């Protein structure tokens, strides 16, 4: 079953006083995401990917078209809470998302607002911290944590609400390589072990290759929507859209251009090494 259905959505930010309406940021976007998928969304700055993400838990609603979350129309304001319980959102800057002075209190914040009984909060907070590998830090002060750890606390705060889906808008942009790896490991585990649907907006091609499916946005439209190996085979088109491809894909592309016979769908390091070894004989 589809947890997210975006039907022909057009969206323009409201115009300033007296000015002409702004050009639409989304122009007829349709996409369906099934329960349990891990989808990466790529696109250069201004391509509309963050605007799309904000439609998935009704921070924004379409100018035209419909967004359904488990069948609930995001335009129905009376269902806002139902939508946000199903789809949680994590943003780029961990410092802007942490509100409490103790890690476990931060994770409990939303549950307290929802009026969840204390014993249930305790259980969910412990589970959520365990799921993101941060139990050890439950009583620590968030500002002493690394960026990757803070982002995992932010993710714990979301999964404590038991959403079916998490949408993350460039969660690793401000992290160092170690922090990025921690966040990716956490997301993959949540997806695999708990069946949580993950929608990951990112600028990092190596993160996109780890998704089951990649959606590429360009100029407010969907340019590609396919498994990573297929998407990244479009080396020239992606470059033209201001994006990159994994180094392995680029190497194979360059060798193919030089006249060597290599498959177009190589993205993993192992496949690339094996394919090149075969050429070398």
């Amino acid at each position: 079953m589809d947890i997210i259905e975006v039907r022909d959505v057009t969206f323009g930010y409201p115009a300033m006083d007296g000015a002409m309406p702004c050009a639409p940021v989304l122009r007829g976007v349709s996409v369906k995401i099934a329960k349990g998928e891990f989808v990466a969304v790529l696109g250069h700055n201004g391509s509309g990917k963050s605007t799309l993400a904000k439609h998935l838990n009704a921070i924004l609603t379409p100018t035209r078209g419909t967004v359904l979350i488990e069948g609930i129309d995001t335009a129905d304001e009376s269902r806002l809470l139902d939508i946000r319980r199903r789809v949680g959102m994590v943003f780029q800057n961990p410092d802007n998302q942490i509100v409490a002075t103790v890690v476990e209190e931060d994770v409990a914040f939303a549950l307290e607002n929802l009026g969840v009984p204390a014993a249930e909060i305790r259980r969910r907070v412990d589970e959520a911290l365990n799921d993101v590998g941060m139990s050890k830090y439950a009583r620590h002060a968030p500002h002493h944590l690394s960026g990757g750890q803070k982002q995992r606390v932010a993710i714990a705060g979301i999964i404590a609400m038991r959403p079916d889906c998490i949408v993350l808008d460039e969660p690793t942009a401000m992290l160092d390589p170690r922090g990025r790896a921690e966040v990716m490991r956490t997301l993959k585990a949540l997806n695999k072990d708990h069946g949580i649907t993950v929608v990951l907006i990112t600028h990092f091609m190596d993160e996109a290759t780890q998704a089951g499916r990649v959606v590429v946005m360009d100029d407010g439209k969907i340019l590609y929507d396919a498994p990573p190996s297929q998407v990244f085979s479009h080396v020239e088109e992606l470059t033209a859209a201001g994006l990159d491809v994994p180094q392995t894909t680029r190497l194979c592309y360059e060798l193919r251009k030089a006249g060597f016979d290599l498959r177009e769908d190589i993205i993993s390091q192992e496949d690339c090494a094996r394919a090149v070894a075969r050429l070398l004989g």
Partner: protein
Amino acid sequence: MAIIRTENLTHIYSKGTVFAETAVENVSIEIEKGEFVGVIGHTGSGKSTLIQHLNGLLAPTSGRVLIDGEDIWANKKDIRRFRFKVGLVFQYPEYQLFEETVYRDISFGPKNMNLSPAEIDSRVLEAAALVGLGGDILEKSPFELSGGQKRRAAIAGVVAMRPEVLILDEPTAGLDPRGRELILGEIRRIHEKTGTTILLVSHSMEDIARYAGRVLVMNKARVFCYDTVDAVFSRAEELEGMGLSVPQITRVCRELAGMGYDLDPNTYTVEAAKARLLTLLGKGEG
């Protein structure tokens, strides 16, 4: 003569309290004029603390910092002079834009240097051109610009002071691939056109391999090594052990070298890997 020299530089935060933490320990380096230096090290390695000493934002707990042979703390009143010599672009510098127009924002630094209006104007235009901003953008509010443009405007504000050393702390963080390439290309242009010494802090070893001449690696508050790109990346496995990420292409070349093929396991750009493979496949130029 070295433009930057540190002698046994040590910095301890919250010294004398239970929270005391040595962020930089006994660092002695010399950076020659006109170098393009890449600075790497994972979070907490001491690299940010180190670079904040180079224009006197932080004062050493012990040891000295010399710019052009002069101890920058010899006379405290002189510190401003060194801040004009060594320009520092922080992470996410676009958050520091504040003026009504891009032009006025870029001119803020030069104005503080008591230059003539004509000199300020020529520096603003030159700096803007170096980062690829021009025309009507200069009269816009900085808040109307795209993320990449804002960042370039912020860099221009430092460049307009014509520092002898330009230090940039992760100038491409959060940008898309095209934005990253543009900014790095502009930094290279500034380096080539003006001969400014550049220190570029980055988490991307690939970017450092492509743009820098030498690499400074910080680890656990100390200098792990300071050497040419080749010499530093020949220690890729040690770098990985410190939590730094080695380019994917390096791992592929290492795997192929492990299978017995004649590839340098320390290849770190696609161009180098391609050139070597084409030679091995009998299509190279060499």
